[in-house]
């Protein structure tokens, strides 16, 4: 079929879904509106499949489908078309978005069944998918930015979906404003790049990118890419701007699965991979990305250990895994980054949906201290969650192992990386294993702490099908991109993903040949670390539940600090938001009320005073007036004479 028609269907079917549900937003039937929404996303999934099939058909170098609908903006030399194009990278992304998206839509039908605003919910979800597709397929940075903010808007709507509750509304607002800070940086990045390249079209910019690395920090490309990265931290919740993601759990769980695990948060990584020719030439930015990625991974993992809300643990795990992706991209392993992005989408979406079905079963109970031993009540959810767990901590045959190991290896091996980064990564991996196992033990294994009033039951089939599909994917997903060192040893299974992305990804400059022994050795170290911390966690939380209490009390201050999320929120409020608000009160009072208005009052009093003087002159006494005339004449004459 003709590409532009397909592209139109791909993009517009979620929009049509949004419009249909939007108009009938009052109607409470979940199945009907859910059906429409899922159908819309499924249609775009099918059309993306066809498009990707066409793409595969094309010769390796020229794999590109470009469709331009209309000229959006044209001011002098700045021309932007509403144009979209699919290449190898965006092919993966649209498959992930529409695929995982439709699964999550299916799941939400069951999950949001008894909510009266369900049609509105599905409308927002479809709008989100529409915006995400624009972000991914955007031909120029500006079209991407349209999707970028559109996605932020939808996450605002969905997080604050149950707006009657003040905290949930506040979480939505917080998400939007933090994203907006990132978007402001994104804007600055666009301006710098437009100033240097004269265009914002991604293809043209990649072509124009210089080949020699740019040394100085204030070089045009470094500055531009740095701003883009700050924008990415806003969207993909890295160190400075990650605060909104944990609060975003206030939204319904499928939303967290779709937006805050699979698609939106990965936008930052995707943007960097898409502009990899630019980033590869800015070593300073790459260094910054790598460091922040690694730090976030460890930092978020440490908080994840101390959280008691099931969704908060998963949220911090997402932030940590995103840290890994940025670490991969930061050291130039764009392929590994994309690979981890894909696998993470599968198992994290799986676990969020799993936690969704747990919460659904436990009647909105999210605190894992009141769960435990749900294995026997929810076998399917437990089994699928088990697969997710195994994938994320990086046990060999599963997806997580291949992608995470690739990242750890490249962070050690790549010239842009360094052993320190590998160490951070390894520690992060160990912590991930610990808190994920802790989560598994506290929710599924161990003795049941479920309160009497609640008796959990398996979620309906409508919700378990997506779980099963995602479970399979998170197992199988890893084999797509098996690192060649393992591939060779297991009878040269080709690294399909690497091979697929190769023409579009710039190779890392002066990358030395990897000796396999070192790679095996590092792989062994990281896997063993992960398994050991998993056993410790199993021991803590299943064998002797009271030991974690003892340890926690022994390092009381540190434990409290971490469990209160290093007081980062309070820090932001204290240093930025509150002073801003009080400062602007004083500012308004000082400038508007006391300064400018005061001047107007002073002038009007001056004028009134002048009037008083003139009035005093008019004493009414005749002779006073004659005196005035006399004096007037004398003064006038003296001046006339003198000059």
């Amino acid at each position, binding site marked *: 079929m003709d590409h532009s028609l397909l592209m139109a269907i791909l993009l517009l079917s979620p929009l049509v879904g949004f419009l249909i549900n939007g108009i009938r937003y009052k109607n409470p039937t979940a199945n009907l509106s859910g059906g429409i929404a899922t159908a819309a996303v499924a249609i775009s999934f099918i059309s993306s499949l066809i498009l990707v099939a066409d793409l595969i058909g094309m010769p390796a170098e020229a794999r590109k489908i470009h469709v331009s609908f209309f000229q959006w903006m044209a001011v002098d030399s700045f021309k932007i078309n509403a144009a979209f194009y699919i290449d190898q990278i965006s092919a993966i992304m649209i498959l992930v978005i529409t695929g995982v998206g439709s699964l999550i839509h299916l799941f939400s039908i069951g999950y949001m069944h008894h909510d009266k605003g369900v049609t509105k919910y599905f409308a927002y979800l479809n709008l989100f998918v529409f915006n995400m597709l624009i972000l991914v397929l955007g031909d120029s940075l500006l079209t991407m930015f349209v999707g970028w903010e559109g996605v932020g808007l939808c996450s605002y709507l969905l997080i604050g979906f149950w707006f009657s509750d003040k905290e949930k509304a506040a979480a939505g607002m917080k998400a939007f404003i933090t994203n907006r800070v990132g978007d402001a940086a994104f804007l600055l990045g666009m301006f710098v790049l437009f100033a240097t390249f004269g265009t914002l079209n991604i293809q043209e910019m990649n072509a124009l990118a210089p080949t020699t690395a740019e040394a100085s920090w204030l070089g045009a490309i470094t500055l531009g890419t740095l701003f883009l990265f700050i924008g990415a931290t806003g969207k993909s919740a890295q160190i400075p701007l990650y605060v909104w993601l944990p609060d975003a759990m206030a939204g319904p769980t499928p939303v967290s699965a779709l937006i805050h695990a699979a698609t939106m948060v990965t936008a930052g990584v995707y943007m960097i991979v898409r502009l990899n020719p630019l980033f590869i030439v800015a070593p300073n930015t790459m260094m910054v990305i790598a460091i922040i990625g690694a730090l976030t991974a460890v930092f978020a993992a440490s908080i994840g250990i101390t959280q008691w809300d099931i969704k908060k643990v998963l949220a911090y795990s997402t932030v940590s895994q995103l840290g890994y992706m940025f670490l991969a991209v930061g050291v130039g392993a764009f392929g590994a980054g994309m690979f981890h992005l894909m696998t993470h989408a599968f198992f994290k979406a799986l676990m969020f949906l799993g936690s969704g079905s747990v919460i659904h079963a436990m009647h909105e109970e999210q605190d894992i201290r009141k769960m435990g031993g749900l294995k026997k009540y929810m076998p399917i959810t437990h089994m699928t969650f088990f697969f997710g767990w195994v994938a994320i901590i990086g046990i060999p045959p599963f997806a997580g192992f291949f992608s995470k190991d690739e990242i750890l290896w490249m962070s050690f091996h790549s010239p842009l990386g360094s052993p320190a980064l590998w160490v951070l990564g390894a520690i992060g991996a160990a912590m991930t294993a610990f808190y994920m196992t802790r989560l598994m033990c506290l929710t599924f294994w161990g003795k049941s702490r479920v309160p009497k009033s609640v008796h959990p039951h398996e979620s309906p089939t409508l919700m378990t099908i997506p779980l099963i599909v995602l479970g399979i994917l998170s197992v199988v997903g890893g084999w797509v991109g098996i690192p060649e060192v393992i591939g060779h040893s297991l009878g040269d299974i080709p690294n399909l993903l690497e091979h697929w992305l190769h023409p579009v990804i710039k190779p890392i400059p002066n990358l030395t040949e990897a000796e396999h022994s070192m790679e095996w050795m590092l792989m062994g170290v990281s896997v063993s670390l992960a398994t050991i911390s998993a056993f410790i966690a199993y021991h803590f939380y299943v064998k002797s539940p009271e030991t974690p209490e003892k340890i926690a009390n022994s390092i009381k201050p540190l434990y409290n600090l971490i469990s209160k999320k290093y007081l980062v929120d309070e820090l932001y409020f204290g240093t930025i938001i509150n002073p801003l608000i009080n400062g602007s009160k004083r500012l308004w009072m000082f400038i508007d009320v006391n300064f400018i208005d005061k001047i107007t009052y002073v002038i009007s009093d001056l004028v009134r005073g002048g009037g008083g003087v003139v009035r005093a002159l*008019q004493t*009414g*006494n*005749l*002779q006073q007036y*004659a*005196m005035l005339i*006399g004096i007037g004449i004398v003064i006038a004459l003296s001046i006339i004479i003198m000059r």
Partner: protein
Amino acid sequence: MQSTNFLTEVGLNHYLILSALLFVTGMTGVLLKRNIIVMLMSIELMLNAVNISFVAFSKYLNNVDGQIMVFFVMTIAAAEAAVGLAIAVTIFKRFKEINIKFFEHLRG
């Protein structure tokens, strides 16, 4: 014979000084005296001072226009006096008071 200096010979300046003096006395009369009638009189004084200066100039320039003007001034002074007195009478009838200190109602 004696030298014609300022003291002995009465020239134009003397008359001018005289009229100036008269004018100033008239002026102070208006400024200081509280009685309405006295004010009227001092206004007449000022006008007569002007007459003197007119006549002095006319004599000095020996052209007769000055003196003709004096007639005009005198007639108008008379008319003024009549009007002034008429107003003074109405004020007295109404306020029973001749001293201008009492009618300062219009002020501010």
